[in-house]
C-alpha cells in the first residue's frame, strides 16, 4: 500500500496502481481516449497528462504507477493547457464532419473539446486525408479513417479481447491508420467490438448508418436473448423500430463487449414476418380471430381432457415469470405433469447435468472460475456458442498465470490462449474425463471408483483419441493446482454419457481438498431459468420433488401412438429442432389439439390448430437467469406488433379462462410469488439493472441465485452414445453457429447478411484429402437426408468430424439424425 496526495487529498492505494485509477478512486476525473482498463496501456493519446510535483514534465497517468509520497495535480493550469493543446493537435487533421458523422452527439472527442478544448484552432493548413469516401470493412463495419484519433483501442480490442487480430495500425505518427490488411474486406467474427470502443466516428455500424441520432433514441437496459451468457446491453429504438444494441463500459459481466449475435442480431424484432394476430384453424386453414375467440376455442378443446394427455413445451427464451406461470398452468390448472423446456435434450440428461454441474448449489460467477489455477473447458465450442465467455477467458488468461485446458473435437479460436488442447473424438467426453480420473487416482482407487481398473485407462484413451502424454500433462496440472474451474457445455446434454465422468471428476478433485467450481455453459438465454422454474418433467420449481411426467421425447412418442390429445407449445420450434428426421413433424400432426404461441410462423406453428402471437424480449419485462445463475432483469422497450401480446398475459388469459383467480396479475407479482415458492430466488430483485457494479467492477454478485433447499436431482449414468456404422467418412456433430443460435437469429436481417446458407465445417486436412477447398459448394449425404451447403475448413479440427449448425432453414440438421439411431455419419461430396 502506498499513500499519495492527489490534488491535496491524501489517499492510500495498492502498490502499482496507476495514477489514473487512483485519481478516479479519489473522485477526480481525468479525460482519456486510449485508456481502457481491460486493455494493455499504451499511453498514446496524451489526454491524461498530470503534473507530478518534482518532475519537470507532465506524465501520462494511464501508464504511470503511483509511488509512495507522490504529490499529483490533475487539474492545474499546466495540465489544462496541455489538454487543450493535445485536443488542438487532434483536431488539426480531424475531418470535422460532425453533422454527417453517425457518432455526432455521443462522440468522446466532441465532449472533450466541449469540456477541455481550445475553442479556437490555429491550424490553417489543408487537412491531411487518408481517403475521400468511407469504405466498408465488413458487412457490419464502415470506416472513415479521417476521423481517427489514433487511440488504437480497436486494434487492441481485436487482438487482446476478441483474439482475431485482423486490424493493424498502419503507418506512423499522425498518419497512422488502424485498418485491415490493405483496407480489404475482413473475414472476422463481425462482433463489432472495434465499433464499440471507438471514441469517435472512425469505426461505424453499417446497419445503423445514417438512421438516427443518439438523442432520438429511447433505450432500455436489458439482457441479450441469444446465448445463456447473459450479457447486459442497451437496446435503442426510434419510432417503434429497434435501431441498435450496444454494450456499456463497466456494466454487466460483459462490460463493453458483445458478440455478433448480440450486437447485430436484435433486429429480428422488427421483422415484418412477425405474427400479429391470433389464428385458429377452420376448415384446414388458419384464420384470424379475436383474442376472446381464440382463448374460448382453447378452453373448449382443453376442458374435457385428462391432464395426463396434455403436454406443454416452453421455450428457454421466455422469462422466469412466464415459465413459472406456464408450469403453474400446466400442473395446477390443467393437471398435467408433462412439461419440458427443450426439444433437443432428454429430460434425464438435463437432470444429470443439473446435478453434475451443481446448479442446485447456487450461482457460480464466471469471474470466480477465472480466479482458479486451472480452467478446464469441455463439452462446448466456447468461441462460437458463448463468445463473450471466450473473450473473458482470453483476456484474463493473458493477464495472470493460469492453466487453460480445452477439450473439444473442433478447433476454436480460444485454442490460442490454451495451454493444453485435447482434441478428442466426438461424444467421448466421458472417456476423456474418466482417463483424467484414473490418472489422478494413480491406482489408489477411491470408493466411488471401485471396479475401475487401470486397464480401463487404455480403453478410455482409445475411445477418446487423446494421447496418454497429453492426459498425463493435464493430470499433472490438475494435481498441482489448488483451485480448479470446470466449464462444461451443452455437449454433455447431447451425449449424456459424459455426465457421470463429470460428476466423478468433480467429486474426486473435491475429495483431494481442492476448490472446485463448475460452471455450466448453455446456449439459450433462460435455459437455466427454465429448469429452476420447474419447466421440466422431473422436478418442480427450485428443483423440488414433483409428480414425474413426460419430456418432449415422451410427449412425441405418446402423440405418435395417438395418446396425446393436446399440446401447448410456447416459443419452441419442435418440428425443426427435435433431432430425428421427420419424427417430430409426423408426431405433431397426430396431436389432437396443438396450440402454438410464437413470434414467427415456424414449422411447428404451421401445423397448429391455434396460433397465438407472442412477444420478443424487447417487448416484455421480466427476469432471465443466465448459465451462471445470475438473475438479471429485461426491460420493455417496444410494444408487440399488431395484436400480439406478452407471453405472460397470454398464459394468464388461458389460465383465467379455467380459473378466474389464476396467477398473479403482473410480472412483478409473479416474481414475488417465485421469491416465496423458490427459496433460491428469495433475494432476486428487479433493481439489479439500475445498479452500476462497484465491487469487482464487472461481477454483480447480488444477482447470483442461492442454493436450492433440497435439489431433487442426482448424477446418473447413461449408456454410451453409439455412432452409426454406415461407413461414411464423417461423424456429424451439431451445435450453434457463431452468427446463429435458435430460431430468432434466422429472422435477423443483419445476421442473415453475415451468413444465410448452411455451412458444413471440416478440418483442413480432410478437405485437402477430398480435393475440396473452403467456400466450395458440397453435398452432405447422410443415411436419411442429403442437402447442399457451403464447405468451410478449419485448421486443427479433429479429422473425420463434420459440423453443421442446428439453425439453418435450408439444411435442417435434425433431418440427418434418426430417432434412437446414434450419432449419424455423413459423406461430403463435391457438387458438380
Amino acid at each position, binding site marked *: 500500500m502506498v499513500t499519495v496526495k492527489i490534488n491535496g487529498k491524501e489517499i492510500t492505494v495498492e502498490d502499482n496502481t496507476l495514477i489514473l485509477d487512483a485519481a478516479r478512486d479519489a473522485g477526480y476525473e481525468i479525460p482519456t481516449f486510449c485508456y481502457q482498463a481491460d486493455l494493455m496501456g499504451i499511453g498514446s493519446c496524451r489526454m491524461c497528462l498530470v503534473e507530478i510535483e518534482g518532475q519537470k514534465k507532465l506524465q501520462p497517468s494511464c501508464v504511470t504507477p503511483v509511488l509512495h509520497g507522490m504529490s499529483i495535480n490533475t487539474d492545474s493550469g499546466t495540465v489544462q493547457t496541455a489538454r487543450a493543446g493535445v485536443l488542438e493537435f487532434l483536431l488539426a487533421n480531424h475531418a470535422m464532419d460532425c453533422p454527417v458523422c453517425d457518432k455526432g452527439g455521443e462522440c468522446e472527442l466532441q465532449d472533450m473539446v466541449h469540456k477541455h478544448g481550445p475553442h479556437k484552432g490555429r491550424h490553417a493548413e489543408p487537412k491531411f486525408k487518408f481517403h475521400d469516401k468511407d469504405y466498408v470493412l465488413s458487412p457490419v463495419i464502415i470506416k472513415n479513417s479521417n476521423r481517427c484519433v489514433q487511440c488504437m483501442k480497436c486494434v487492441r480490442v481485436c487482438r487482446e479481447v476478441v483474439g482475431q*487480430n485482423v486490424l493493424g495500425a*498502419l503507418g506512423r505518427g499522425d498518419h497512422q491508420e488502424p485498418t485491415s*490488411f*490493405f483496407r480489404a474486406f475482413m473475414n472476422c467474427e463481425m462482433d463489432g467490438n472495434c465499433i464499440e470502443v471507438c471514441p469517435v466516428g472512425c469505426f461505424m455500424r453499417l446497419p445503423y448508418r445514417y438512421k438516427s441520432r443518439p438523442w432520438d433514441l429511447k433505450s432500455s437496459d436489458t439482457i441479450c436473448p441469444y446465448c445463456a451468457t447473459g450479457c447486459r446491453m442497451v437496446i435503442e429504438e426510434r419510432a417503434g423500430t429497434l435501431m441498435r444494441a450496444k454494450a456499456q463500459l463497466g456494466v454487466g459481466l460483459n462490460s463493453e463487449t458483445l458478440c455478433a449475435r448480440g450486437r447485430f442480431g436484435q433486429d429480428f424484432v422488427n421483422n415484418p414476418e412477425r405474427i400479429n394476430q391470433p389464428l385458429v384453424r377452420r376448415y384446414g386453414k388458419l384464420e384470424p380471430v379475436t383474442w376472446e375467440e381464440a382463448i374460448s376455442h382453447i378452453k373448449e378443446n382443453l376442458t374435457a381432457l385428462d391432464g395426463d394427455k396434455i403436454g406443454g413445451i416452453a421455450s428457454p427464451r421466455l422469462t422466469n415469470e412466464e415459465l413459472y406461470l406456464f408450469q403453474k398452468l400446466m400442473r395446477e390448472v390443467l393437471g398435467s405433469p408433462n412439461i419440458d423446456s427443450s426439444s433437443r435434450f432428454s429430460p434425464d440428461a438435463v437432470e444429470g447435468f443439473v446435478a453434475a454441474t451443481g446448479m442446485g448449489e447456487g450461482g457460480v460467477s464466471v469471474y470466480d472460475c477465472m480466479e482458479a489455477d486451472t480452467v478446464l473447458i469441455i463439452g462446448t465450442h466456447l468461441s462460437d456458442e458463448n463468445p463473450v465467455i471466450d473473450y473473458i477467458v482470453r483476456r484474463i488468461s493473458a493477464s495472470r498465470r493460469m492453466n487453460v485446458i480445452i477439450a473439444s473435437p473442433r478447433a476454436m479460436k480460444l485454442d490460442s490462449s490454451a495451454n493444453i488442447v485435447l482434441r478428442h473424438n466426438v461424444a467421448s467426453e466421458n472417456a476423456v474425463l474418466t482417463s483424467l480420473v484414473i490418472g489422478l487416482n494413480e491406482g489408489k482407487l477411491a470408493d466411488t471408483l471401485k471396479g475401475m481398473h487401470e486397464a480401463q485407462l487404455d480403453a478410455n484413451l482409445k475411445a477418446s483419441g487423446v494421447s496418454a502424454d497429453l492426459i498425463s500433462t493435464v493430470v499433472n496440472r490438475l494435481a498441482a493446482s489448488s483451485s480448479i474451474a470446470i466449464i462444461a457445455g451443452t455437449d454433455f446434454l447431447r451425449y449424456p454419457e459424459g455426465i457421470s465422468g463429470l460428476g466423478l471428476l468433480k467429486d474426486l478433485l473435491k475429495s483431494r481438498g481442492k476448490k472446485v467450481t463448475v460452471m455450466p455453459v448453455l446456449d439459450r438465454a433462460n435455459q437455466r431459468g427454465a429448469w429452476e422454474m420447474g419447466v421440466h418433467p422431473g422436478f418442480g420449481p427450485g428443483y423440488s420433488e414433483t409428480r414425474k411426467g413426460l419430456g418432449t421425447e415422451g410427449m412425441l412418442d405418446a402423440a405418435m401412438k395417438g395418446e396425446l390429445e393436446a399440446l401447448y407449445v410456447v416459443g419452441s420450434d419442435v418440428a425443426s429442432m427435435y433431432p430425428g428426421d421427420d419424427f417430430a413433424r409426423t408426431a405433431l400432426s397426430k396431436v389432437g389439439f396443438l396450440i402454438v404461441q410464437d413470434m414467427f410462423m415456424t414449422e411447428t406453428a404451421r401445423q397448429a390448430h391455434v396460433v397465438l402471437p407472442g412477444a420478443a424480449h424487447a417487448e416484455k419485462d421480466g427476469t432471465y437467469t443466465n448459465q451462471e445463475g445470475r438473475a438479471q432483469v429485461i426491460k420493455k422497450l417496444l410494444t408487440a406488433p399488431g395484436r400480439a401480446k406478452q407471453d405472460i398475459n397470454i398464459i394468464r388469459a388461458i389460465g383465467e379462462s379455467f380459473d378466474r383467480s389464476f396467477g398473479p396479475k403482473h410480472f412483478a407479482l409473479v416474481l414475488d410469488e417465485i421469491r416465496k415458492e423458490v427459496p433460491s430466488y428469495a433475494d432476486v430483485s428487479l433493481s439489479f439493472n439500475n445498479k452500476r457494479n462497484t465491487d469487482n467492477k464487472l461481477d454483480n454478485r447480488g444477482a447470483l441465485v442461492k442454493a436450492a433447499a433440497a435439489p431433487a436431482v442426482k448424477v446418473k449414468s447413461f449408456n454410451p452414445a453409439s455412432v452409426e456404422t454406415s461407413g461414411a467418412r464423417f461423424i456429424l456433430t451439431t451445435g450453434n453457429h457463431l452468427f446463429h443460435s435458435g430460431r430468432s437469429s434466422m429472422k435477423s436481417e443483419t445476421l442473415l447478411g453475415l451468413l444465410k446458407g448452411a455451412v458444413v465445417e471440416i478440418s483442413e486436412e480432410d478437405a485437402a484429402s477430398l480435393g475440396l477447398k473452403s467456400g466450395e459448394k458440397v453435398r452432405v449425404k447422410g443415411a436419411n437426408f442429403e442437402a447442399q451447403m457451403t464447405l468451410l475448413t478449419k485448421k486443427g479440427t479433429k479429422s473425420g468430424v463434420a459440423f453443421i449448425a442446428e439453425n439453418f432453414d435450408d439444411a435442417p440438421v435434425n433431418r440427418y439424425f434418426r430417432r434412437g439411431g446414434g450419432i449419424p455419419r455423413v459423406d461430403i461430396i463435391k457438387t458438380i
Partner: protein
Amino acid sequence: MLSEQAKQEILASLKKYHDKRSAVMDAVRIAQKENGGHVVKRDMEEIAEILEMQPVEVNAAAAFYTMYRIDKPVGRHHIQVCRNISCSLMGAEHIIKHLERSLGIKTGETTTDHRITLSTVECLGSCGTAPMMQVNDEYYENLTEAKIDELLKKMA
C-alpha cells in the same frame, strides 16, 4: 511471390530469434531486397504464413519504418532526405523543395523514366552533418543546392 531462395533466407533468419514473430523485420527486408526496393501484398501474405501471424501485422510492422516501401516501386536511384529536427533546422525543407523542383516530382513519387524516387525519411543518425540524405546505400552530407545539382547531373 517469394522465390525459394528468399524463403530459405527467411527460414534461416528465424534461428536468430526466440519467437517466430520477431523475424518479421528480417523477412520483410529480404522480400524487399528480392523485389527490387519495395514489398508487395502477396509477399506480406506469404511472410505472414511462414511466421504464423496475421498479414495485417506484417503490414503494420513494414508500414511503420520508412526503410520499407509498400506497393510503390522505386526508381534506380532512391533519394531519401532526412526531415528530422537537426536536418530541418539546417534547412531540409529547402533541400526537399529544391529536389522537387529540379526533378519535377513531388515527395514520394518517381520520375516518369523510373530513374529517381524521392522520399523523406526519419533520422538517419547523421545529425552532425545535417542536412543530409541517403541515395541508395550512400550518405550525402552537408548538402547545399549546388551539391545536389552536381549529384543529380551525375545520376543522369
